[in-house]
């Protein structure tokens, strides 16, 4: 009996060992299979082709997920294209929405498994360490190799330069507006605000009635850092201060503290929700406005497609509220909200890996940034790509159309406040900046303390030499 048991056990092990080894060897073959949250576009011949060196696979990590019908249609276009090129190369796509892509990308990079193409934030505050490490290909090299795309095809101001080199092909051209819920304003017989002081006055009426004046919170710094910079940027000299952070190593300035103190004043006046964490981040903040709980909303185009039909109906775009006082800029009437902070990056190692891979990358990007795909991107996301193009509004998101109409009717608005996310030169400092903002808006630290904490982080983590 004992012998039988031993023989059986030995047989079991003999079966398990090859199985284990089989798992190991099947990993490579499985790279083009479709994982749960991603898709791989391939053909029957791809497996054999890859091993022979004729067909390569390009891994694309971006923020395109099929969360809406429009996005699904956009992804279908990529799918169709991938099917057409399957005899030449395989497109392995992984879409991760929102900030979660940062965790995924950082994990890939740390594991020396970076994708060939990645849609990421185009500034040192988010991708500085990767730019520093030489992970990405300078865009000049790509444009020199591409026959269909050139640098001039994109909005010049949306290129970001790290030590004088541009690494990301600009992806988006976002704009922003202030929305008011006209029904609430009519109900309480209120005039639309023209200044930030007016917003505080409105809060005195709305807060006792259980209405949140401005849907704004801060969770991981979102979305507060945008309107904060918008307010700060309306002070004379703020733009120069922000632009010189990398050279001066100074972020705590009197003007910045003054802007923070104004936010403090707004918070104390009840302009914001009392629960700034739970109502922070993009979704919850917009939910307050969508549900009619808030009278005002600071809208950026990436959120335009998330407004409900009811919210679009009761919304009106107003002129940007202005900062008052001696230090206020005199050209605020010409200031809107424009930015481009996402870009497509090419993995330098992939580019240099082989001619086939390089050709595949060029082909995919030529397709992805083609006029047709840029139009589809606009229709799916509500945000115009950074490619210079006459975009058709025919199938665009309703609120995006209205935003375009607003800016078309105000041709004088050509300026925009600078953003800390584009000028803070280090990703650790930026993470601290955002985390401390939650603390600040909740009242745990004062404006002075917040600025001092961010400055301390800058002093510790950034060497301006």
């Amino acid at each position, binding site marked *: 009996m004992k012998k039988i048991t031993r023989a059986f056990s030995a047989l079991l092990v003999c079966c398990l060992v090859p199985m284990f080894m089989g798992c190991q060897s099947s990993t490579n073959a499985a790279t083009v299979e479709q994982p749960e949250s991603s898709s791989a576009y391939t053909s029957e011949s791809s497996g054999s082709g890859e091993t022979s060196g004729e067909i390569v696979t390009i891994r694309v990590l971006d923020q395109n997920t099929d969360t809406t019908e429009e996005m699904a249609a956009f992804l279908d276009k990529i799918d169709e294209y991938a099917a057409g090129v399957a005899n030449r190369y395989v497109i392995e796509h992984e879409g991760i929405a929102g900030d979660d892509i940062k965790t995924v990308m950082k994990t890939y990079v*740390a594991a020396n498994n970076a994708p060939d193409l990645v849609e990421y934030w185009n500034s040192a505050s988010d991708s500085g360490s990767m730019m520093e490490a030489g992970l990405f290909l300078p865009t000049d090299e790509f444009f020199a190799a591409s026959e269909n795309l050139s640098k001039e095809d994109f909005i010049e101001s949306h290129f970001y330069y790290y030590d004088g080199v541009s690494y990301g092909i600009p992806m988006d051209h976002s704009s922003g507006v202030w929305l008011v819920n006209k029904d609430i304003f009519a109900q309480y017989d209120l005039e639309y605000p023209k200044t930030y002081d007016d917003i505080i006055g409105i809060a005195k009426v709305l807060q006792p009635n259980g209405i949140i004046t401005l849907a704004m919170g801060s969770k991981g710094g979102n979305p507060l850092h945008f309107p904060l910079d918008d307010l700060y940027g309306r002070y004379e000299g703020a733009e120069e201060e922000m632009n010189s952070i990398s050279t001066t190593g100074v972020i705590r300035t009197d003007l910045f503290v003054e802007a923070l103190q104004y936010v403090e004043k707004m918070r104390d006046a009840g302009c914001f929700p009392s*629960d700034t964490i*739970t*109502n922070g981040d993009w979704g919850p903040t917009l939910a*307050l406005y969508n549900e009619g709980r808030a009278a005002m909303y600071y809208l950026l185009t990436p959120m335009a497609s998330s407004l409900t039909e009811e919210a679009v109906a009761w919304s009106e775009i107003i002129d940007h509220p202005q900062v008052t006082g001696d230090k206020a800029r005199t050209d605020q009437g010409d200031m809107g909200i424009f930015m481009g902070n996402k870009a497509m990056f090419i993995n330098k190692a992939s580019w240099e890996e082989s001619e086939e891979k390089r050709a595949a990358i060029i082909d995919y990007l030529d397709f992805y940034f083609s006029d047709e795909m840029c139009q589809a991107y606009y229709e799916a996301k509500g945000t115009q790509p950074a490619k210079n193009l006459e975009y058709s509004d025919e199938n665009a998101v309703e609120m995006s159309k209205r935003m375009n109409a607003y800016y078309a009717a105000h041709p004088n608005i050509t300026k925009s406040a600078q953003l800390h996310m584009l000028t803070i030169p280090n990703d650790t400092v930026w993470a601290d900046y955002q985390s401390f903002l939650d603390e600040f808006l*909740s009242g745990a630290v004062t404006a002075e303390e917040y600025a001092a904490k961010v400055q301390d982080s800058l002093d510790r983590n950034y060497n301006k030499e």
Partner: protein
Amino acid sequence: MKNDHDKRKRKHSDILFFTFFSVPSVLLYIVFLIVPLGLVAWLSLTQWTGAGDIRFIGLENYRFLFSYSDFWIIIRNTAIMVLMNVAIQIPLATILAFVLFRLTKGFRFFRATYFLPSIISATVIGLMFSVLLNSDIGPVNSLLRSVGLNSLALSWLSNPRISIYTVTVVSLWQYIGYHMVLILAGMQSISEEIMESAMIDGANNFQLAVHIVLPQIRPVLEVSFIFCVTGCLKGFEHAFIMTWGGPGVASTNLALYMYKLAFSSSELGKGAAIAVMIVISALALTRLTNLIFRVKGEEDALSL
């Protein structure tokens, strides 16, 4: 003589046999636990953003952390989580398990009901409580205000003084059922004869619980304590979802801080240093739990 030789041969053959079968699991243990732990310990002595060169900096990450004021808030938060869970979760789970153990009707229904939250994803629970506890539009505060308890309608997740307690209570609530099932299983393994003898001797439920059940399930309680303590050290989903560890670091524990340092701040060296601290804390607290239970066991044995 021949017998001795046979015995030695058999022993030798047994050793070979057991070694042969142990090698795969030992190898897996080394490859997937010991080696990564060693790498994390080494990484904690470096400065690395995840991209580019790794720079050896000795104990600088630890020196920074111990001199950083926010780190001590995080240590305090972790201690609060561990203490609250140990002091509330395990006793409550034990009481619930005993009530179920003595229940004659509805046993399965209540066991399933109490256990249900622990099988739901912590992310879902976190989102659910974010909505419930939203101080502007959430039903909890609406209810409190409707019954005139305005002073209790607090900003549960945005007030830095209470957010850590809110997050801890939610995680504590979610996993009570898990510990209850563990402890209940221990109770159900108690010999019926012992229980019947005690009841024939006239023991009431309280006496049964204190003098019969609790001493009998001491090993299970020990395991439950260890799971509870180590769970607090490594769990971060609730705070991650509900508050992002905030405001600031007001509800951040060690595990969440590790994540934020590594993946948000791109400071993998400091994140690894926190990971090392979590491992050391878990080992120390596990050992402490073992000791406490052993001493208590010896005391009880002597008193008999």
